[in-house]
């Protein structure tokens, strides 16, 4: 309760939440406001925004409604962001928890694997995965999740290292609890807050990674994603710049919203920052 009140005391956090709710509202109302397939041809190509009342954000180079693509794209971006984050956090928590709890050789091996992932640039690895496994929405999402797990894993490991020697964990052991129960029932709930906060960073990066893939035309071409629209706009960037700029702003707003919410959560959940 106190954390909730703390959250709403911070103006940037509230702004972030409002923006995020706006994006979610766009995703929710897309079918209702734009019932037609957003990738179907709607009118003349390259209509500037605010010139035709039917296409208030204009049309792209093949005559598809940009507003419809933005609204439907919100779904794709949020979906990719949420699912990829869930995958990354899940792998990260399991690897980090096991490494931090057991320590020793297990820890060494798992952390060397994490380092192997971290030394390769994320995006290069993502490119390789997408090129090898194809670029459907599912593979792209999973690939983004797979390249993003090392950071949450390190964070979880650090929390576990400091928590595993607490007396309440030892008390659990003297009560005869199994390791699984100690890790996930006793330690994890205490280790979770910073990881949840970090999830917002992972989500923002996931949305950006998908856009970057789409810009290189390596994302799923059969869905209306913001990245795809930017990629299309690339051909007409010098004259009809709005084709790329509008989805660009949508990405900016979403990533900003997610980051602000994450920062707000961090401040609200972290007792050490209280009273600052």
């Amino acid at each position, binding site marked *: 309760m106190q954390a909730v009140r703390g959250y709403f005391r911070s103006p940037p956090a509230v702004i972030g939440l409002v923006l995020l709710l706006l994006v979610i509202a766009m995703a929710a109302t897309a079918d209702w406001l734009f019932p037609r397939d957003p990738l179907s041809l709607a009118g003349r190509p390259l209509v500037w925004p605010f010139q035709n009342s039917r296409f208030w954000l204009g049309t792209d180079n093949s005559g598809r409604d940009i507003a419809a693509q933005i609204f439907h794209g919100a779904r794709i971006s949020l979906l990719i962001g949420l699912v990829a984050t869930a995958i990354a956090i899940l792998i990260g928590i399991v690897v980090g928890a096991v490494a931090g709890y057991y320590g020793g050789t297990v820890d060494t091996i798992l952390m060397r694997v994490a380092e192997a992932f971290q030394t390769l640039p994320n995006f290069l690895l993502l490119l390789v995965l997408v090129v090898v496994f194809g670029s459907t929405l599912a593979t792209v999402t999973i690939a983004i999740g797979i390249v993003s797990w090392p950071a949450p894993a390190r964070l979880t490991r650090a929390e576990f290292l400091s928590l595993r020697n607490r*007396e*309440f964990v030892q*008390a659990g052991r*003297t*009560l005869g609890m199994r390791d699984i129960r100690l890790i996930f029932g006793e330690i994890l709930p*205490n280790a979770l807050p910073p990881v949840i906060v970090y999830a917002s960073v992972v989500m923002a990066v996931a949305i950006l990674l998908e856009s970057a893939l789409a810009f290189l035309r390596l994302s799923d071409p059969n869905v209306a994603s913001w990245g795809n629209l930017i990629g299309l706009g690339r051909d007409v960037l010098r004259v009809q710049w709005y084709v790329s700029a509008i989805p660009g702003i949508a990405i900016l707003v979403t990533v900003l919203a997610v980051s602000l919410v994450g920062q707000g959560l961090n401040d609200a959940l972290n007792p050490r920052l209280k*009273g600052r």
Partner: protein
Amino acid sequence: MTGPVLTLDRLGVRLPPGADRSHALQDVSLAIQPGEILCVVGESGSGKSMTANAVMRLLPVGVAIDGGRVLFEGRDLAVLPEAEMRAVRGAGVAMIFQEPMTALNPLRTIGDQIGEMFGIHADLPRQQVATRVRALLEEVRIPDPERAARAYPHELSGGQRQRAMIAMALALDPRVLIADEPTTALDVTTQAQILALIRDLQRRKGTGVLFITHDFGVVAEIADRVAVMQHGRVVEEGPAAEILQRPQHPYTRQLIAAVPPLRAPPPRPLAEDAVLTIRNLSKTYRTGGFLGRGARVTHAVRDVSLRLPRGGTLGIVGESGSGKSTLARCIVRLIDPDQGSVELGGADLAHLSRAEMRRQTRHIQMVFQDPFGSLNPRRRAGELVAQGPMVHGASRADAMARARALFQLVGLDPASVDRFPHEFSGGQRQRIGLARALALEPQVLVADEPVSALDVSVQAQVLALLADLRARLGISMVFITHDLRVAAQICDLVAVMKDGEVVEEGPVARVFGDPQHPYTRALLDSIPGRGFGAGA
């Protein structure tokens, strides 16, 4: 010199709104004469440390002096501008803290940090500073002052660090020294040396000392006058002998009565058969080194053999680093011992597999020291107690019913099972920890410093509860403590540990009344205020 060197006149310190009371201090009036030690004694939350901080004007954000005066050398420190206050701190009024490790900068040498005092308050050439630092370190009787000046804080022992702190505080011959629990973090033998040192230096230099402590033993050892604080007010003040022998205020009487006397109560009859037998237990730690070369070897527990009679209480006493906690953890297998056996009901706990040990946990349980750290903050109190039976196969409903019954047993309100640990006080939390250990109906309870983190009056209550439960449930106990007074009260047998070895063991009245080993004698002689409380 006449008249007090430091006077607090109806001092009030305001707490931020939302705290548990409006004022940390109210109407506190104290006077320290030159060459006098005034002990301010009270339990946690009584405002004794806040008094020290208020004099130094080192108050946390949101806390401020809102009434009264602090008179020092004709000036009111409460309203002095910050720049002038800085000149007073260290030079006029110096302070030593409880934990010298955190009060010293870990990245600079001891000599450097003491020398800094001269850099701030006096303009001395470098050569002269070095000589003064050496003289100071000699004065506080640090072994090998030359080397100590070049050492970093972590290279010194706790007692040596506290000596260095005292040297730093006395560098500029302050007229008032404020000591905030300076010996609480130290072992009893070191504490005795530090107390003697403070007393000696203060006599020679005529410093007025404001000594903050929670320990009446220390008061009896060092105080000229005593002020007892409760809830931010001074409830009683007077000469030490007067207060200790004839306390007037009911709170003072209650505090003094709660100090456990060193003399053991009449021995209880002990059973013949042993419930727990420890044979030749050893645990060695090896750190660093390559292929066995240059490794540091620590014998935490060395060839310990002990026997706990059924229904009896075996005390294990010793200073920090003596291996008593490692021994306790070896018994319950939180640590795997290297050698030896721990026999309980026909099973050798030291050689069981992990899975077998999990089943045996119902027979042997542990109570931990830290009432804050030993309870998972994210679980409700009832759940914490019910966990044990549930792990061992009881249904949730049965376990929760059992938790409620146990809350009653340990003197907690059964309706409070739905509250979280942070909603309980320290003493109550320790009761929850006790209920959790008792939930499995163990034969043996291993208690690792269960009352060390508690205030003296709460400590007395928890000790009484332990004694009562022991009598009612017939539990046998291994009781680890550094406090010989506590050991005298609760234990039937006692084993004294030093450097991982048991140097002396036997019935508590015999060991404490007629100690054979020189180390046991040294320990007993170091207890502050030895004579005090003996007759109570």
